[in-house]
């Protein structure tokens, strides 16, 4: 594993703004102030992913992890900040370089049912990217489809099937095979096993690890499931309301979690090795990203909150070699 970064995110922001309706546009025209809701989905994220690494991105619903993943894959543009692919700003890439980026970084979605066209046969779904980008002559597409199917453990008899004729686990395999068609080097996986049964989940996780061993893929693995992330990640980043609150090697974060939110997540993780636990849950709800709390966004739920936490956003600082955390407790 080299340290060459494949993807580098610098001060990345994504804001979703409500579009003004007619009345609001009229008010704006006569110079009246209008209050538009803005969701700051990703709020200043720096993250470096090196070649061959598996980075697990963990967070609860609404924390911005999927938005971040989509920006990395180039599906949506950041409002502010840059995504660099192999050292170059993705926004400045053009022509062949841009194509190399969008093909090199492929995305695998949570819901394979929704991401596969129900009216296409599997070989059409898989072959489409080759046809669109003219990556292979027509005569070779069939062979490439079979090869991708074999890669994810499906036989060529699946070529002629429709998505509804296969099971959920197989559909996720097709989602992976489709990403493999264009020979990517980086896979953004957005909750790829969340919708699968445990026994099928294990099969798909094993497939991800086999692919890494075979092709040396780099992964951004987005999940809310710490158990899965712990299993396959080299590094782990924990997100809460648009910010990364802790980042470190997987081993370190599960052994010595620093941020109170990470500690809470670890405590709440259902675990077959814990029996008849007396639950001691963290209090409160996840705040709405429309109105995030001031200062450290975790302070309303944090057992250690101090006055400073309400006012100042704690910076993400290195607390040990390769271990970053954003908590005021580290800087007394």
């Amino acid at each position: 594993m080299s340290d060459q970064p494949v993807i580098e995110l610098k001060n990345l922001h994504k804001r979703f703004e409500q579009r003004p309706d007619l009345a609001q546009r009229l008010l704006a025209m006569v110079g009246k102030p209008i209050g538009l809701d803005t969701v700051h989905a990703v709020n200043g994220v720096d993250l470096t992913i090196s070649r061959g690494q598996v980075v697990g991105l963990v967070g609860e619903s609404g924390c911005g992890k999927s938005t971040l993943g989509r920006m990395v894959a180039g599906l949506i543009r950041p409002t502010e900040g840059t995504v660099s692919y192999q050292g170059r700003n993705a926004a400045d890439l053009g022509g062949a370089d841009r194509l190399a980026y969008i093909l090199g970084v492929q995305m695998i979605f949570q819901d394979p049912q929704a991401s596969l066209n129900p009216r296409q046969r599997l070989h059409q779904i898989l072959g489409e990217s080759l046809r669109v980008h003219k990556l292979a002559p027509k005569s070779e597409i069939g062979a490439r489809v079979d090869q991708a199917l074999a890669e994810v453990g499906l036989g060529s008899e699946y070529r002629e099937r429709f998505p509804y004729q296969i099971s959920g686990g197989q559909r996720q395999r097709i989602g992976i095979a489709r990403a493999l068609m264009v020979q990517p080097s980086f896979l953004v996986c957005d909750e790829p096993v969340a919708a699968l049964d445990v026994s099928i989940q294990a099969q798909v996780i094993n497939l991800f690890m086999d692919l890494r061993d075979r092709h040396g893929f780099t992964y951004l693995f987005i999940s809310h499931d710490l158990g899965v992330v712990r299993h396959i990640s080299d590094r782990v980043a924990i997100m809460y309301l648009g910010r990364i609150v802790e980042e470190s090697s997987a081993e370190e974060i599960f052994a010595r979690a620093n941020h109170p939110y990470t500690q809470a997540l670890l405590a709440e993780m259902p675990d077959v090795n814990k029996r008849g636990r007396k639950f001691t849950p963290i209090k409160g709800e996840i705040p709405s990203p429309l109105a995030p709390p001031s200062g450290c966004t975790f302070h309303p739920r944090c057992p250690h909150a101090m006055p400073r936490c309400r006012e100042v956003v704690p910076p993400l600082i290195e607390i040990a070699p390769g271990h970053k955390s954003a908590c005021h407790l580290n800087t007394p």
Partner: protein
Amino acid sequence: MNEKEILLDVRGLVTAFHTEQGAWPAVDGVDFVVRRGEILGLVGESGSGKSVTGFSLIGLIDAPGEVVAGQVLFDGVDLRTLDEEQLRQLRGERIAMIFQDPLMTLNPVLRVREQMTEAIFTHHPEISRQDATRRCVEALTMVGIPSPEKRLDSYPHEFSGGMRQRVAIAIAMLNRPELIIADEPTTALDVTIQGQILYQMQELCRAHDTAMIWITHDLGVVAELADRVAVMYAGRIVETGPVEQILSAPRHPYTQGLLQSMPATSEPGARLSQIDGMAPSLSGREAGCTFRPRCPHARPECAAAPPPNTVEADRSYRCYFPLQEAA
């Protein structure tokens, strides 16, 4: 704890779905007991029949499904012999149900107050409006909803997902039921919210000696919450017993396979041991042991007939060649 009285005794329950090709049993001969104040984790993957089992208990199976055989003895009375009116009296009063999606349970156009008091007045028309409101506030407080008096006048869409599920739980608890059937109530929630709700359910069941059937696919949740566990596969309970015994030393290869598939049970980065293949569809189940095609220990004998239920002290399993504890 084994001295406690048996509250629910299910014997030979069969629920079939009628199709043009014939009747397929989604639940195929299920037996289990739940004692007072006990939490039973009913675990299985999609299509194993765990939810259908829960629905069958209180007569919530609609056509083309039908409970075709078995007894559901609740406090000594077979619920299958009751008519719809008697069942209606029982549901929401002595047996309550919590569903996975609280939006399905809650009426979107009624305030929480109306939905809660309705549950009280249906069973206790003699209660005054004031007392009913007081009970609603108590129930909402119990499940940890802040400023319950104010929230009574909110509509379901004004609550977050976790809060909505709490309202659904509060409604289920209103009449102090003796049994709660909970169908994956935390599956759609975030881990920290799931933790809060598990905590409250555990507390509530202990405080009121309420028995609960917790239907889930997550063995991790069962390990932490339940007293006993029943593992379902393809319509049958393949193994049941105290959580500690079943999870530490499974006898059935499917239970062991499920446990070993969980990332938590293996070294990070190591290959997960997987159960090959997939669960059979309703129409594609094998004769004999339904797990045979996926079982690493299958032998020709397994194909002959479904394995009988073998009882061993506190636990039981359906396997001809049960796993032995590692010596």
